[in-house]
């Protein structure tokens, strides 16, 4: 196309409907184009901005593609060793009970090497929020099988597809932690459409608000894509996610706390 379709004159204050939250640092995201991590980061930071709790929030980043989350999220953060984020969050919350504390973890981090930390933080009912990005694969290390990899799904360490007989079954960590009395709110969301983004954001808001009630872990899974690891275009990855991931990992609330009036 020869002529430009973008008219710079439309940038006026009265036309502004949406902008980058300054709770995201001014730094280009290191994620692959189309990856869900970026959207998840943004709505998380929007929630913190809208609640006005930046000063009272401490985050824990994992090891995985989001290892550099602290480069993007404009709140105080600690980088955990692989899988240990819930242990760090436990200590942070115990020492500073009035803070809002969250972890942000991938499926390898949360559901493989960090299973013990996840289960026990949930079982102790720590008053923290755990955000679990489930893309069914190890993105950072180049596409190895994750505990959440679907049956028959190919990865570099399940090159012939995940064989449940020898590699186990995809782990529904979210349903699992929902059975623990220490969790108060457990939900599964997605961020690949505007509607889902809105719902996921509302869930994050609820999760953070619940921290003040001190009734246990609020746990938000976000089923996401990994177009690089799945070796698909971003658009294809999203369709594939809807067709394959959602049937196994159905979206919606799994456990909600009793209302207080």
């Amino acid at each position, binding site marked *: 196309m020869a002529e430009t379709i973008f008219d710079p004159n439309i940038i006026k204050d009265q036309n502004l409907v949406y902008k980058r939250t300054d709770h995201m640092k001014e730094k280009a995201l290191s994620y692959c184009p189309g990856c869900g991590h970026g959207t998840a980061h943004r709505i998380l930071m929007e929630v913190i901005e809208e609640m006005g709790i930046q000063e009272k929030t401490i985050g824990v980043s994992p*090891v995985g593609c989001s*290892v550099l989350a602290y480069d993007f999220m404009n709140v105080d953060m600690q*980088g955990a*060793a*692989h*899988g240990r984020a819930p242990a760090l969050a436990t200590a942070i919350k115990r020492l500073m009970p009035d803070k809002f504390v969250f972890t942000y973890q991938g499926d*390898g981090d949360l559901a*493989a*090497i960090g*299973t013990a930390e996840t289960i026990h933080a949930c079982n102790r009912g720590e008053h923290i929020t755990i955000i679990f990005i489930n893309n069914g694969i*190890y993105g950072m*290390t*180049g596409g*190895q*099988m994750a*505990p959440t990899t679907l049956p028959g799904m190919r990865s*570099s*360490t*399940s*090159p*012939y597809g995940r064989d449940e007989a*020898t*590699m186990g079954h995809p782990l529904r960590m979210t349903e699992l932690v929902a059975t623990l009395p220490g969790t108060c709110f457990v939900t599964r969301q997605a961020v690949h459409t505007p509607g889902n983004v809105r719902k996921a954001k509302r869930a994050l808001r609820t999760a953070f608000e619940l921290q003040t009630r001190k009734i246990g872990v609020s746990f938000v899974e976000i089923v996401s894509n990994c177009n690089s690891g799945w070796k698909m275009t971003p658009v294809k990855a999203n369709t594939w996610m809807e067709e394959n991931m959602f049937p196994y990992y159905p979206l919606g609330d799994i456990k909600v706390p009793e209302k207080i009036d």
Partner: protein
Amino acid sequence: MKELRLMKGNEAIAEAAIRCGCDAYFGYPITPQSEILEYLMVEKPHERTGMVVLQAESEVASINMVYAGAGCGRKVMTSSSSPGVSLMQEGLSYCAGAELPCLLVNVVRGGPGLGTIQPSQADYFQSTKGGGHGDYRLIVLAPSSVQEMCDFVGLGFDLAFKYRNPALILTDGAIGQMMEKVMLPASVNRWTEEEIKQQTPWATTGKPADRPANVITSLELDSAKQEKVNQKLQAKYAEMEKNEVRFERIQCDDAEYLFVAFGTSARICQKSIDLARAKGIKVGLLRPITLFPFPKDEIEKLAGQVKGMLSVEMNAGQMVEDIRLNAKGKCPVEHYGRFGGIMPSPDEVLKVLEQKFIGG
């Protein structure tokens, strides 16, 4: 059948494991060694030899699976890179305490902490001085070519079983990721049930009526007995120091100066030697192949011959302590290191040698 191939160091380790009759591999992905697990998964060793390959949920799990497999008298191995190997230290200490023969590969990356994924030799202390708690040693092999990556898998298992001790292949991301020609050995069969019982009568293979139950443990609460256990371990390490020291001498006979380096650094130094000799500087290289047992006597002997030794390492100065200890003051010993995943270049190494000893 022997076979010549162009392979990455990591792949050579995996293929060698299948060919040398390894019974099981347990591991967890981490860069720069994930190709070992990936290669094994592609090759379906279960179909080729019956070898078990499992992606564990963590390195803690991997090393404990190795402990148990070794306890059954099987040839089992794991591999990881620095952060993962740190996680394995507890399990390794238990393996050493229970005298379990097994093989570990550490494809080292720069630390401390999560560090970098680029090559490093910063895990020398951890590897050669024990690493976990208690008085123990690993047999440490340091390959400097893809061929040696392949060869040391079989050698590592042999030594591990000879001494009932964990063996470690200490390598780094450069050799792991590099491709070279490699002559793969012919396949040998995995041990049969009968052979396992014969080779490892101590293993938990199921108690028949005619022998007492076998127990694999590192626990001995009676201090007097625990001291005996330790003395036995120390005697074993002394035996290794007597029999198993391996090293390579490169242009040492007429050398006036000496590089001491292992693994990737040793390769770099070989090029530095060419550059030096072209300038008329007589330099040689002592390349320790076993880092434990360390070539103590050879160091002492060469210290009496040369005007100076330069330890070239991709760390802040670790092996240099062992060199100084064994040079016994017979010649000056200096260190040159790069860290954080940076590898020194051959001309840089030569310049340092000239500066430190010749005054250039």
